[in-house]
């Protein structure tokens, strides 16, 4: 994505200059390109003057969202969409949580108005989201040291933080894992924040390159931002162990770095909201100042409503107030104030003990289905693959995704031969896999792994 952005920049020539030759105006101002079209009543002269946008080239399809589009176009019966990380039921249908339907009906009955939210979003939502993350009653919340702003899901929240970094830490770098979610680079590029990678994925073990990760974090200039996935790393599914998290916190503190958590799967990874927040809470215990971006796309199934938050943990309430005001200043010229619908749903669900309990149960169910399907895939691979390859990495991974270890050519084979749609980095979304399809998928993986290089 980064390279395509750079090439776009270089092709943006002044359109007028390119088209000077094309425009040949006759002496009386008549334009030989003039076309006359008849509309219903009015005959319009549509002057086809050269467009200012002549030099604009087609943007490449998004590597993740583009997969679903390709899947839709495929007519083969066996096709399987393991591209975008959206939860599917066993019947491979999208799933709207019951508790969400309940909340929506409640909102409808109450006849809530549609007034603008304040720039920082719905207060009840901001309170709920910070408490979910840190635990209600946590010192950082009690002492008002967290600046929380409702954001446009994870993407929007990350973007607000990136803009804050660009404005107040000019020249500071963000370190992102290799690999990471494809849109992270776009976000930092468009926010003009420089970034580099820290080692993360080890293709040899299909596990975490922990030493490489620690080395690279140590190497980074003091005061760098370190982007960490709170749980269920996307795209690999490989998370540090609790002991490894402690070491990461040590080295981040040692180097005066600023941790920047992306928490898109709280509750969705292990099934437990608290367990999945452990890494973030560890850092909070240390008294560090850091960022956390949250999303409710997956864990509440609110994908399309774009609901999330950016939290900035500061060392004082005063700093938090100032930071919050500056985040608002960034949001105002982006979208003025955030959309209300998703925020109300979250606030209603979390604010009602019964609904909150129901949500936790549904989340456990979703996470449980994924764990079960993960196990079934592993079992199918082990029973079908006679090569003796160790597939246990699949069980060690967590969350919606699995890094299969397949390279681009092998991933292409998955799609072209087996009609299995996935991203080119070898990532499959287990959320899109049913028990019924595990065997077929195992066949596809085994074939791509052994017969394609």
């Amino acid at each position, binding site marked *: 994505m980064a390279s395509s952005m750079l090439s776009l920049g270089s092709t943006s020539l002044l359109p007028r200059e390119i088209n000077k030759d094309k425009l040949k105006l006759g002496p009386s101002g008549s334009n030989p390109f003039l076309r006359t079209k008849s509309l219903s009543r009015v005959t319009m002269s549509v002057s086809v003057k050269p*467009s200012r*946008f002549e030099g604009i080239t087609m943007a490449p399809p*998004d590597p993740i969202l583009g997969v679903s589009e390709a899947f839709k176009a495929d007519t083969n019966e066996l096709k399987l969409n393991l591209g975008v990380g959206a939860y599917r039921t066993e019947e491979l249908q999208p799933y709207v949580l019951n508790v969400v339907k309940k909340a929506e009906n409640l909102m409808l009955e109450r*006849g809530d108005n549609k*007034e603008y939210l304040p720039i920082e979003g719905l207060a009840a939502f901001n309170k709920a989201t910070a408490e979910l993350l840190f635990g209600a009653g946590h010192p950082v919340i009690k002492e008002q040291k967290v600046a929380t702003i409702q954001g446009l899901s994870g*993407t929007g929240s990350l973007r607000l933080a990136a803009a804050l970094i660009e404005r107040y830490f000019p020249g500071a770098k963000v370190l992102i894992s290799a690999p990471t979610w494809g*849109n992270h680079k776009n976000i930092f590029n468009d926010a003009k924040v420089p970034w580099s990678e820290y080692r993360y994925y080890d293709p040899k073990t299909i596990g975490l390159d922990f030493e490489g990760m620690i080395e690279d974090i140590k190497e980074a200039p003091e005061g760098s931002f370190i982007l960490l996935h709170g749980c269920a790393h996307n795209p690999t599914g490989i998370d540090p162990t609790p002991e490894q998290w402690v070491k990461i916190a040590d080295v981040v503190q*040692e180097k005066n770095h600023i941790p920047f958590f992306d928490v898109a799967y709280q509750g969705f990874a292990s099934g437990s909201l608290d367990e999945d927040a452990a890494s973030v809470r560890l850092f909070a215990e240390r008294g560090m100042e850091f960022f956390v971006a949250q999303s409710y796309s997956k864990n509440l199934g609110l994908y399309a409503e774009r609901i999330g938050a950016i939290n900035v943990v500061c060392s004082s309430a005063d700093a938090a107030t100032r930071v919050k005001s500056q985040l*608002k200043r960034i949001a105002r010229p982006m979208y*003025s104030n955030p959309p209300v619908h998703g925020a109300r749903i979250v606030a209603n669900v979390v604010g009602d003990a019964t609904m909150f309990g129901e949500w936790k149960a549904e989340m456990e169910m979703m996470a449980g289905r994924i764990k079960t399907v993960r196990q079934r895939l592993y079992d199918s691979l082990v029973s079908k693959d006679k090569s003796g390859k160790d597939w246990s990495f699949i069980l060690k991974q967590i969350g919606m995704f699995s890094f299969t270890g397949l390279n681009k050519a092998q991933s292409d084979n998955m799609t072209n031969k087996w009609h299995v749609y996935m991203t080119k980095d070898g990532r499959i979304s287990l959320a899109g896999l049913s028990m019924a399809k595990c065997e077929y998928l195992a066949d596809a993986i085994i074939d791509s792994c052994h017969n394609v290089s």
Partner: protein
Amino acid sequence: MAMMAMTIRNSASRRTMMSRPIFGSRSMSSWWKNVEPAPKDPILGVTEAFLADPSPDKVNVGVGAYRDDNGKPVVLDCVREAERRIAGTSFMEYLPMGGSVKMVEETLKLAYGDNSQFIKDKRIAAVQSLSGTGACRLFADFQKRFCPASQIYIPVPTWSNHHNIWRDAQVPQKTYHYYHPETKGLDFKGLMDDVKNAPEGSFFLLHACAHNPTGVDPTEEQWREISQLFKAKKHFAFFDMAYQGFASGDPARDAKSIRIFLEDGHHIGISQSYAKNMGLYGQRVGCLSVLCEDEKQAVTVKSQLQQLARPMYSNPPLHGAQIVSTILGDPELKSLWLKEVKIMADRIIGMRTTLRDSLEKLGSPLSWEHIGMFCYSGLTPEQVDRLTSEYHIYMTRNGRISMAGVTTGNVGYLANAIHEVTKSS
């Protein structure tokens, strides 16, 4: 504001160049020392102050959100019905990056005309946006990326957030004359001079109808002249249309300026918002469109707009878009909507008339020729401050009155207060 930001930037970079504080002190100091409190937003801050005021007489004529005659927010019947139809049954999958196709289709018809040839020829690059703000911001970013040497000409005055938007998109701004304080009307000569003097091929921001904050619009004849001059100068017209239907009560009439430009062959850009005319404020629903040469170019431009949206918010929110498509896609609901828009517009026009009559009865010299939700009262910031401190009347300090906040219950009080603070001037 730019200067302050520069100072902050410089001091921050000086700080990073100095030797870092040692680890022990880190835990006591903050990364955020250099972060100053941001100034309150001049518009949204007014409502905050209003809400905090305990006076029973308080009046909010600040933010442009419609109120009924009891001063209460309104959710349109057509919206409630649409929500009933979609509640609890909809999927919540991600919309495409360009948003809801159906909603965009219906929205383009409103701006370009139901039978627009441009729509039939697929010449319009259009994406769902985060209301009007988001549409303007996407366009500003698009302008920056693909016409990096360009500037934007913005009217004086304009909605304050326009300046923030193009500034954060890093597009340099210039201004053009618009409001004539002496006549409280349009400075047409000043406007035309500025249009003429701008370098060929400049980008101009135009308010399609119900200019915010003045309420002063060009006449149809003036729009035609503006369009002709734009043609001669090969300028690019970007229309911000936030009040279609809301200004006159008739959406077709409110889009007249745009239709004139289209007839004259301009390739324009449009920001549309459903915040006011469908009362969907908090849902953040709107649309950005760019009229291109042909279908191929429209596809290309759309792909680039999506490319800008992806790292900002990935894809736009669903709920508001569903409401819009449900309403506009159903002839009965659409007809109900048109009725309700007319009711809102009529109430505002009625209030404007009542306020003017009340002021005239009191002997006030102010004139009230304006249209739409806002009007520029001509009050000075000091007079506005008096209105707030003495009468608990809240408005933005530029003297802009949001007529939507005026009711039969408070119009007398408002007229009296305005007269009191202005009669001596």
